[in-house]
């Protein structure tokens, strides 16, 4: 049998050799198989990235309940405690005079953009320099940008694997400078869903509006 009426018509007009007909039949089947495979991949892709976002989609369980931290009030704190909100996480340290203030200033602006949706989002800076960053200093530092931001740090045994979860590391560098040492750390912003999934990452240079736009899309989809 033939799948395409057009082919049947063609057959009536000029009958083809048996071998050609067979080839056409195969071609038709291959085309259908191709379309089906395409549709399958399209659908599976759509399932993985339900909405289009500006950030780089990751979609990986972050196991945030495994890493005990200390918050800026010196209390035990797990990122998984914030399971009712989207977490905007980044790693830094308070003696970081350029990259971290740049990121925090960016987050302050993006957070302000969210307006009525702010309650669904928590910005957290985790310091990877616990030796210098006492909780009180951390509090002063993050609150200098926004009063709702959380500062946290922890012991190396928890910090190292936490940073590794997000594909990074941190390393102390002795430099010939009055700052004595500086910390190499991830510069990306990590977005975590309320279910604890590492949803996306944002790599500098950060364009204004993209994070708040993504959060708005994701929150509205969730609350609909």
């Amino acid at each position: 049998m033939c799948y395409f009426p057009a082919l049947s018509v063609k057959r009536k007009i000029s009958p083809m050799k048996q071998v050609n007909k067979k080839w056409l039949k195969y071609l038709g089947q291959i085309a259908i198989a191709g379309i089906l495979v395409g549709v399958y991949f399209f659908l599976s892709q759509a399932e993985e990235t339900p909405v289009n976002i500006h950030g780089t989609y990751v979609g990986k369980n972050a196991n945030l309940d495994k890493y005990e931290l200390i918050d800026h009030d010196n209390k035990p704190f797990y990122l998984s405690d914030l399971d009712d909100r989207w977490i905007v996480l980044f790693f830094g340290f308070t003696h970081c005079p350029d990259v971290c203030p740049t990121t925090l200033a960016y987050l302050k602006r993006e957070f302000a953009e969210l307006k009525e949706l702010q309650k669904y989002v928590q910005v957290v800076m985790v310091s990877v320099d616990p030796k210098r960053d006492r909780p009180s200093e951390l509090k002063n530092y993050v609150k200098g940008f926004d009063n709702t931001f959380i500062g946290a740090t922890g012991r190396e045994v928890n910090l190292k694997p936490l940073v590794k979860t997000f594909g990074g590391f941190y390393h102390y560098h002795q430099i010939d400078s009055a700052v004595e040492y500086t910390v190499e750390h991830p510069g990306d912003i990590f977005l975590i869903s309320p279910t604890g999934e590492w949803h996306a990452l944002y790599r500098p240079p950060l364009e204004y509006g993209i994070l708040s736009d993504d959060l708005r899309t994701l929150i509205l989809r969730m609350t609909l």
Partner: protein
Amino acid sequence: MRIIGNLTTKAVLFLTLTLGYSSAYAVVVSTKNAWARPTREGAKMTGVFLDITNPGKSDDSLVSATCECAEVTEIHESMHNHGMVKMQRIAALDIKAGETVTLKPGSFHIMLMGLKKPLKVGETVKLQLTFKQAGVVTVDAKVKTQ
């Protein structure tokens, strides 16, 4: 004596000409858009950013910076590499002839360390930048958020 006198005259003439030449073609750099990031009570460090242009015909470099507002002032660079960031002190920042170098967040910056008091939005901090060729240039950096 006459020979020595002649030599002296020549030397004076030579010096006058060379000095005259060098001052007529003195290397200058111009700066603009200088700003410093404000700090909170207790914060000891911040960054200063600006554009430095070398309109001359010979290369120059920024070799040091000082500010009365801080104990130490250094030239630093933030480097991004595959999602990781680190900062390093640089000995000199080259400003090639005819080029403009922009010191900006996430890149080159002047770091003020050991701030004597917090920098508040609307204030101005005075910095002295020393260039290898152009010498000392004073810059007023406006304290503001980006």
